[in-house]
């Protein structure tokens, strides 16, 4: 027996919707298998992992806190990947956004009135965008592959942040802990509900709406889609692929930077070496699970947020490692990619009599 693909005449609309659902279902199935291999009751484990996080109000708020940065970064990456621009350094841009945005409250701690927040957010986005400008410049000027450069810059960004936090920006009264001073007043994002849910969620929603309109209704969105699927046709239409690289990297870098400063000025309230638990990488999965569509990213961000919360809950309730969350995320991405094949192809199982040729349609 072997698997062969048969190209469909047109992309299947049904599968476009069904594929992510199928991928999630397969991931849950894989999860059940993994849990029973670990000697756990799979039903209970899945309940703790995926259902419990959405059953209580406080955990729903916590879910929003986790999902906001994922969505914020994920929508930017969705536009990027649509245009065939492979920014995989969002984690680094997030770090840079956090650093830039933190400059004001750390260097001018007395500046605590409302404008500081606006400036911090702008600085955050600027930091992320500037950092993403490096791979954009190298790609457009020298033709250097942005995948490797943007990724290398993640390590560099984390080292830069590390230096600031352990060096000049360390809190002098902080008992030598590697952290900055605590932010105060409008240096912290306003919160909603019982306390942890912050303005970042609102920004994420705005980004989703804006980019949804951009991608589905505007010429710019059309341009992104053309350049991404058929670059020659893009040149023929008169779109510049270089400008597209700049647009995508600046946009996604800016949004990642915004997510970075929101993490610092939101949940933590100070700068510390571990700014994010890998949101910049998880957002890659979010973008794909959301079908590279801003509205889909919103749903996907919430689902990946659940997996983070579930990981924490499972650690406490079931005594299993929170690393399982990362494993689930990886498996999920695999299943999404595999299921997406169904959009363009039909899959046939063939009994293979000969290795070649007998596979007549």
């Amino acid at each position: 027996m072997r698997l062969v693909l048969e190209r469909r005449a047109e992309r299947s609309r049904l599968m476009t919707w069904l594929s992510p659902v199928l991928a999630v279902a397969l991931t849950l199935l894989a999860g059940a298998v993994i849990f029973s291999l670990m000697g756990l009751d799979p039903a209970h484990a899945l309940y703790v992992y995926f259902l419990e996080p959405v059953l209580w109000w406080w955990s729903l708020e916590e879910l929003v806190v986790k999902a906001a940065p994922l969505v914020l970064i994920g929508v930017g990456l969705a536009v990027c990947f649509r245009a065939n621009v492979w920014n995989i350094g969002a984690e680094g841009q997030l770090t840079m956004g956090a650093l830039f945005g933190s400059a004001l409250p750390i260097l001018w701690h007395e500046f605590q009135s409302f404008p500081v927040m606006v400036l911090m957010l702008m600085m955050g986005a600027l930091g992320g965008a500037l950092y993403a400008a490096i791979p954009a410049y190298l790609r457009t000027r020298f033709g250097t592959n942005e995948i490797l450069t943007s990724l290398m810059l993640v390590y560099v960004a984390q080292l830069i942040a590390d230096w600031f936090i352990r060096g000049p920006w360390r809190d002098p009264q902080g008992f030598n802990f590697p952290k900055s001073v605590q932010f105060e007043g409008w240096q912290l994002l306003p919160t909603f509900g019982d306390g942890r849910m912050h303005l970042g969620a609102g920004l994420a929603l705005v980004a989703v709406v804006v980019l949804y309109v951009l991608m589905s209704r505007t010429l710019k969105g059309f341009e992104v889609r053309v350049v991404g699927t058929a670059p020659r046709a893009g040149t023929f239409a008169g779109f510049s692929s270089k400008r597209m690289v700049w647009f995508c990297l600046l946009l996604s870098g800016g949004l990642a930077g915004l997510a970075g400063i929101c993490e610092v000025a939101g949940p933590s309230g100070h700068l510390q070496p571990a700014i994010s638990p890998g949101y910049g990488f998880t957002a890659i999965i979010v973008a794909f699970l959301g079908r590279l569509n801003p509205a889909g990213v919103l749903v996907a961000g919430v689902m990946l947020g659940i997996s983070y919360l579930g990981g924490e809950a499972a650690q406490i309730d079931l005594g299993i490692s929170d690393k399982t969350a990362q494993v689930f995320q990886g498996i999920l991405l695999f299943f999404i990619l595999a299921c997406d094949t169904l959009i363009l192809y039909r899959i046939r199982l063939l009994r293979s009599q000969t290795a070649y040729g007998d596979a007549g349609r």
Partner: protein
Amino acid sequence: MTGLEAVILTIITASTPLLLAAIGELVVERSGVLNLGVEGMMVVGAVCGFVAAYTTGSAALGVLAAVLAGMAMSLLFGFLTQTLATNQVASGLALTLLGLGLSGLIGESFTGLPGVTLQPFDIPVLTDIPFFGPILFGQDVLVYTSFLLVFAVSYVMTRTRIGLVIRAVGDNHDSAHALGYNVLAVRYGCILFGGACAGLAGAYLSLSYTPQWVENMTSGRGWIALALVVFATWIARRVLVGAYLFGTVWIMGLYAQGLGIGIPSQVLSSFPYLITILVLVLISRNRTLTKINTPACIGRTFVPDR
């Protein structure tokens, strides 16, 4: 042991994992496949190698486990990108993300435990030769393997029919298919070889470089190996040069740190990454050089029509 001898020995240890991973990826890319999952395969190889060696007490079994783990990961990638024709960039990223998570999970209860060290060869008399003895004859089996692999791959790619077929498939998969070659089978083979090499690289890290398990211990080496293949313009001998160049830079950073010059350690630690970027820029500036050697089909999916 003289200072220079120590420096050279550490350069070898820093270069070997890069070399192993890069030579495997070179074969993969020559066949027209871009596997960005080197980091993931390597880190899973590292943890499986460590765990197997720790539980059995045998470093050899550790190496074997690492190779098998790397191949298993690459098989996953092969199934996705070859059989299911998924996007290679996205699938490679998925492999890395999965590998990092999986290795963390597998290795969690082994963190910080004392590992089994792969013993270097110790040939009496020869190893005792001052300076050259330890450098030439006192390495472990993986170091020699890495050199052997470079020469073997170089020979196979340029002088044998298998190499010719691999290059042909990477240059034009439609033509290769038309001539009756099984493109997917050739690519599966190359992908598995790449996985085995990445697994070896991981084994070297967790059994020789630092015989213990530390989460994310590959720290970007898989990505640097990818850059090395570009640097080498897909020519095997140049991977050797590139890997040792990078290894040297890596070690220089550490030594400078040790000397306590007033440079912050973070600056020195970022050296390998910055150098990688610099090298990529220098290489990509030379358009003709890269364009002539780049396998024309790299990253493109192939679905045989029937």
